[in-house]
């Protein structure tokens, strides 16, 4: 295989992976923007998406059903966690962060209990392969890219055009004023948390056939998701989208030339530079 084909493949993979990361990071940023809480357990929602997907496929043999049901289940769990566990500490960001750390341990090892420690595979739901540059490329991955883009576009429309979307943006900007114009802020936070969990879980089940499914996959995604938040700027949704693709492409392209480890270190270096030079993220508009 020539280097240009190799490069092209890695760029495609980078795009697909970047879009999956974007699903996860958008959820993280959405929640962070609203309640200024960094959700350490966010990766576990990604993991749960894949795990529930795996179980659902075992029982129903139907990937598509799992694709819809698993994120919904995880959203329900997210809703419960926000309402039942996080709310009492929500005015203290560091405390809440530690609580989400506890939640993370509980979710990981509950899954370990039932699912076990060894990784499992989900087969791609269709085996179609496209021919690109004289080489085969998984049709499923193309599907993942298209679906993710569609979901991200829908998310944008939801935030811009619907009443709840307007409320979410208002609560993010000024929570007290939002209450004073009659917005049920607590419910908005709950819905946003569920929405964030839904997106992470969707990323999880979409990624499952590409990688494998195990109880620590949420932990593995965490550094990447956090780097995205820093590079894109905390609370900045467009920034998160851009940063996801940037990191995934950076790691994808550079891994053609250097080892994957070095490319991971490259994104770490990028993050450190952003942190020093543009603490508001590289995609932030200079305002206020």
């Amino acid at each position, binding site marked *: 295989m020539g280097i240009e084909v190799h490069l092209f493949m890695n760029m495609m993979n980078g795009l697909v992976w970047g879009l999956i990361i974007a699903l996860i990071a958008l959820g993280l940023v959405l929640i962070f923007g609203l309640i200024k809480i960094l959700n350490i357990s966010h990766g576990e929602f990604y993991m749960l998406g894949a795990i529930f997907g795996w179980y659902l496929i075992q029982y129903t043999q139907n990937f598509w059903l799992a694709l819809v049901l698993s994120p919904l289940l995880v959203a329900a769990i997210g809703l419960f966690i926000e309402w039942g566990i996080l709310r009492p500490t929500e005015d203290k960001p560091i405390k809440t962060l530690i609580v989400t750390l506890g939640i993370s341990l509980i979710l990981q090892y509950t899954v370990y209990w039932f699912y076990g420690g060894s990784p499992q595979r989900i087969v791609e739901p269709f085996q179609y392969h496209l021919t690109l540059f004289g080489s085969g490329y998984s049709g499923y991955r193309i599907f993942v890219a298209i679906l993710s883009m569609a979901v991200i576009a829908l998310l944008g429309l939801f935030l811009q055009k619907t009443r709840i979307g*307007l*409320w979410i*943006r*208002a609560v993010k*900007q*000024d929570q*007290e*004023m*939002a*209450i*004073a*114009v*009659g*917005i*049920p*802020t607590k419910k908005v936070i709950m819905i946003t948390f569920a929405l964030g969990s839904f997106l992470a879980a969707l990323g999880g089940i979409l990624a499952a056939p590409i990688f494998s499914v195990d109880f620590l996959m949420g932990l593995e995604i965490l550094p990447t998701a956090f780097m995205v938040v820093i590079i894109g700027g905390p609370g900045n949704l467009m920034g998160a989208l851009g940063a996801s693709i940037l990191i995934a492409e950076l790691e994808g392209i550079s891994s053609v030339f250097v080892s994957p480890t070095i490319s991971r270190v490259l994104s770490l270096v990028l993050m450190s530079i952003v942190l020093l030079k543009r603490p508001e993220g590289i995609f932030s508009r200079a*305002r*206020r």
Partner: protein
Amino acid sequence: MDSILNLQEIHTFYGKSHILHGITLAVHENEIVCLLGRNGVGKTTTLKSIMGLTPANRGNIFFQGRDITRIQDYLIPRLGIGYVPQGRHIFPDLTVRENLKIGIVGNKVQVKTYEEIFSYFPILRERLNQLGGTLSGGEQQMLALARALVPNPTLILLDEPTEGLMPRMAKLVVEIIQKINRTGVSILWVEQKLVTVTEVSHRIHLISKGRVEYQGTPGELIQNREIQLRYIGVKV
């Protein structure tokens, strides 16, 4: 009685510090009532207690005869109370249009049309698609008033609405407030400067250290130099 807002012995705390020490006051229908006092005496806190943002720990608040002291915070504006906070608190990243729309919640409320709003605030017509954060101070004040007005409230709470505005703009704002009042909207107006409200208010309460120390008509207050000096300082 025809009072639409009634505060009875309101006590409010921030954590352990006791800020309001039993505020009692009433706003009657169609009235402009002013709450006057120096820096940090608890004027803003009184309004926030009414809105449920810093709930009163003791005492009762009645709105149109109904006890709203322990009602969930976000339901209070839906009863027909508009709030124009100190510093305006426009949503900076929402457009003017969205800022206006945001006050429309619930289903039953009959809302003002854009045309009605523009009849009070013509300037907003041109700004409709601009972000709230890009408006000038005066325009933001207009928007804050308009936002409170859209859901057709029966009572509006104003927190120093002319603070930081140029005299001409301040005068315009006061005129608009009077115009709103003449359509039957009662107003509770928090202010530091007596001059701003002598012409327009029906009754004035003086507040000091979380307590209402005096009340009377503007005319009575202007006569009473001693009270003025004691509670609002020399500036008249």
